[in-house]
């Protein structure tokens, strides 16, 4: 059964200059136990999608269209109280800023116990036992449960957040740049562990990152986002080794590879469009090496380039 089905999702932020359409017409689905990566540069709307899935958009943000079906239930139709019960029990989140995601004046263990007793009919002592189990699961010494966040290293904080995300055995975890603040070695360990835990507990993961090489390593499916739209989606190998959309090609070319030949990294010239203005044609056309006059005027359509590999471009 499909775990998460996002249909034609649009999200806008009310700003002083008007409605900023941060996400427009994004559709993807995720089967239970599978992982989907969302990649794109800063401001492309990937974090906004993550927050919207949690029902945690800031006060000036709202979903302007589309549906988010979790196990067949439309999250948009839930009341605030029903949504509160969904959070962390069915959908948990691993945060972008893990360094500051823990409350500095509360013991780490207490913050996890709190997440458990809020959603499960268990006593604090039982919750604590579960937290001890979680610590072992993510490879952290159990005696550190009663430490404060500042006594943890960056990697430990990240592990603690992962352990916390697993606390209620959710079916879906949204991991927003979970390893960005860590050094490469710790990053790799944590990615491996995340992958193992995902298989062990059959969790669906939406992995949000700006780094397409990391996403390709962890996820089965990759969705590439540009200026609030999904522009290419397909299997990880397909998208990473055979990118079709000019933006994805440029994105892959802008990251170094360790094993491949030494070639110059190519930055993408120009800037993404300002999303406050309505855009008629292709959003990438101003930066696209292959753009034609028609690209500016016509709304691009989805093309299937291979089985399960789709591109939002009329010229690929």
């Amino acid at each position: 059964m499909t775990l998460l089905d996002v249909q034609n999702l649009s999200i806008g932020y009310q700003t002083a200059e008007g409605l900023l359409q941060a996400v427009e017409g994004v559709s993807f689905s995720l089967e239970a136990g599978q992982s989907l990566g969302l990649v794109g540069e800063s401001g492309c709307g990937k974090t906004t999608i993550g927050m919207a899935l949690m029902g945690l958009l800031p006060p000036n943000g709202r979903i302007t269209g589309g549906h988010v079906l979790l196990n067949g239930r439309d999250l948009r139709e839930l009341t605030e109280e029903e949504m509160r019960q969904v959070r962390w029990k069915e959908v948990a989140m691993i945060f972008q800023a893990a360094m500051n995601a823990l409350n500095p004046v509360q013991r780490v263990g207490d913050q996890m116990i709190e997440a458990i007793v809020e959603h499960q009919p268990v006593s604090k002592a039982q919750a604590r036992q579960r937290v001890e189990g979680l610590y072992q699961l993510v490879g952290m010494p159990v005696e550190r449960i009663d430490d404060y966040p500042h006594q943890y290293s960056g990697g430990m904080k990240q592990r603690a957040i992962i352990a916390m995300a697993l606390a209620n055995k959710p079916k879906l975890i949204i991991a927003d740049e979970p390893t960005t603040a860590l050094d490469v070695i710790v990053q790799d360990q944590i990615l491996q562990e995340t992958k193992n835990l995902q298989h062990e507990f059959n969790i669906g993961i939406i992995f949000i990152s700006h780094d397409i090489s990391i996403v390709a390593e962890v996820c089965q499916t990759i969705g590439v986002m540009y200026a609030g739209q999904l522009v290419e989606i397909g299997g990880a190998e397909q998208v990473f080794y055979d990118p079709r959309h000019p933006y994805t090609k440029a994105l892959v070319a802008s990251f170094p590879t360790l094993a491949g030949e030494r070639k110059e990294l190519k930055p993408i010239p120009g800037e993404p469009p300002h999303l406050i203005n309505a855009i008629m044609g292709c959003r990438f056309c101003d930066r696209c090496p292959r753009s034609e006059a028609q690209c500016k005027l016509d709304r691009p359509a989805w093309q299937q380039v291979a089985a399960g590999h789709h591109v939002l471009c009329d010229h690929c």
Partner: protein
Amino acid sequence: MKRFIIKRMAQVVVVLFLILTVLFVLFRLAPGDPVERMVDPNLTLEEAEHLVEQLGLKEPILTQYGIYLKNFAMGHFGHSFHYGQPVAEVIWEKLPNTILLFTTAVILAALVGVSWGKIAAWSKGKWKDLAFTVAALVTHTLFLPWLALLLVWFFGYRLEWFPITGMMSEEVWLDPDTAWWQKAWDVGYHMMLPLLTLFLIHFGSYLLVMRSSMLDTLKEDYIVTARAKGLSEKAIRNRHAAPNAMLPVVTSVGLSLAFSINGGALTETVFSWPGIGRELVFAVSHNDYPLAQACFLLIATVVLFSNVVVDVLYAYLDPRIRY
């Protein structure tokens, strides 16, 4: 932590010594004859001579300084001219009254300021926020003696709800049949107006500090985490936001307590509350030098110790702070 407290105590002793020295110099630099100031002018010549001898005022200045330090170290603060009692006795008699009034006022103001500041920040931009903020700004900027007189006029004179002077009624305290709770009630009844004055002046600043600190805290990532965990709004506010936002209020409360003696002087004077602040004003205006000197020293001591208490409390509230 233990080492930190010992270190801070050592600092307090050093600073107190410096303050004693400054006081010694100031009282001798003041125009006129020190003998005239240190010895009660109402005494007979013989008695005065004797006292001058006793106080060591005929010794060279350095010896005088030594005697002065020794007296303070041993707790001899001299005799008050006005009361004819040892200064220490006068102070011990008045100090609890000041503590009772001021601590009660500051604690009440802090409780109300913190909880209302919390609510104001939580409903930022709504009518509750506006009402609390305006109330805080108005009361906080009022001129204390004016407010005190206004309260005396309205509640004491026009409505006749509360007594306007003193701390207790004679008929209650002289009656041997009065139970302790009747006495306590009587003191509380007398305390209402000065308490209200101090409360009104103080709660606004706590409210404003708490509100802005809370607004900063609400932008923190761990608040998003708390929300993502599916906690109720109340739990997010009280368990995650408020304990972090409280920290600056602690400093503010500590400083108010530090300045309780001189800060309470105006209130105590207006309401004839028999406390240290009023005593200080009285001692200065009536040239009761030994009493004034001891009051100044007491102020310095209270300020220094409040700072130590705030530091220790901070480490207790914020685990990131370790000494």
